[in-house]
């Protein structure tokens, strides 16, 4: 697979457009995990993530000509398509309650059962907190903090300005800190306005 690692995404796309099956195959192996992870972190469902991954590459087969290298990397382009599909799914399925599923089981890292359990609980709580964020904040957290994209790449994927990404990320992280704060400290976090009748 040296050819895969040496060839750039754009070259693989050109190969694919020229009718070379290997181009698509290499591109899929290189980028499918990131797309799948993004979809999974956005919606928390393995089945939806699979569907979105398939749809993203189907779109690439059909509309690969729409990619403009001047607007950003192919990675950002694919994540942009994935984002559109995820948002569509979320809007369509907002009336349904998902059954708890272990989206992607984290593997034990060999630091003992207690550490593994603790880590598992942390991941679970963070995932739950991310899934409760509004979509516009969730996507920047997923792109910038979980996918480790730069602000520019995230802006290209979301189709907005870099400043917007920064401000949304600031707000999203503030919300996440509030949500993940331990309950003993975080009890009075949600302050509701009250009127004094005295």
């Amino acid at each position: 697979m040296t050819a895969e690692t040496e060839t750039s995404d754009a070259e693989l796309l050109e190969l694919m457009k020229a009718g070379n099956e290997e181009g698509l195959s290499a591109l899929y192996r290189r980028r499918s995990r990131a797309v799948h992870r993004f979809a999974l972190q956005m919606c928390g469902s393995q089945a939806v993530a699979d569907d979105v991954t398939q749809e993203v590459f189907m779109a690439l087969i059909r509309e690969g000509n729409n990619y403009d290298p001047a607007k950003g990397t192919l990675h950002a382009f694919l994540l942009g398509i994935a984002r559109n599909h995820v948002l569509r799914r979320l809007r369509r399925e907002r009336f349904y309650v998902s059954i708890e599923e272990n989206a992607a089981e984290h593997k034990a890292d060999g630091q003992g059962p207690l550490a593994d359990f603790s880590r598992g609980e942390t991941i679970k709580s963070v995932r739950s907190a991310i899934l409760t964020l509004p979509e516009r904040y969730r996507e920047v957290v997923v792109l910038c903090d979980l996918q480790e994209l730069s602000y520019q790449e995230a802006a290209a994927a979301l189709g907005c300005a870099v400043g917007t990404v920064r401000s949304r990320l600031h707000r999203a992280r503030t919300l996440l800190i509030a949500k993940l704060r331990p309950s003993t400290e975080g009890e009075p976090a949600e302050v509701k306005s009250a009127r004094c009748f005295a």
Partner: protein
Amino acid sequence: MNCQEFERVVRDLARAQASDRITNELLLPLDHAGMCPACELKLEEERELSRKLAAVASVSSVPSTFIEPALLQVYRQTTRKVGVAKAVPIFRRPVYWFAAAAAGLLLVFAVGILRSRLTTAQPGLSIAAVQRGEDAPTSAAVVIPSATSSRVETVNSSPPASDHRIKQRHSKRVSDRVEQQIAASALIEPQPEPEIATQFIALSAVGPLNLQDGGQIVRVELSRLAMASFGLPINMDRSGERVKADVLLSADGFARAIRFIQ
């Protein structure tokens, strides 16, 4: 650095610390956090969040194995369809034949319109030319058909015989068209019979009528006996018939004069 500036870079600082990528630019905010307890607490929270997010990011997810073969199958079908479309020669495509038929119809339609315009426009020009007595290219041969054209031929004997024949044919064609046009116009618009009218006879003894003030002529029908009151002769055999007359009305609406029409 103050707390507000620290607030702006705290996220980058926390992320950099979580990934051990501290740059020189971030040293100054780090110093500020060492001095300000509130900012240090904020940095600690951000660092903790970055650590948790890194734990989530480290969890790998793999798409299902059936996706890749399904995609490749779709890709093969797509490329095969494109290939088949390319292999069909252009003259075997139905679109080509539809386009050709449409173009042919358009051509026939355009030629028809052009021909009809030429046939209607050219005689008109000839008639105008005949009436004006000009139009150099057709010359006298166009104006006078048959008998005189032979005279023209005898006079102008200098051009070759074939030229003469062409001219003769052309002039005959044009004169035929002129005749057809005249006959057609005669059929379409029948000429009204010429009217014979008497002079206007004054009806009232007022001053001279100034026509610049306005007025109108009204066509009426009267009994033939009315002619007698103006001193005009009447055929007594036709005294029961009616006769047409034009009555001249002045601007004030009074009848000023009358003439009889036959």
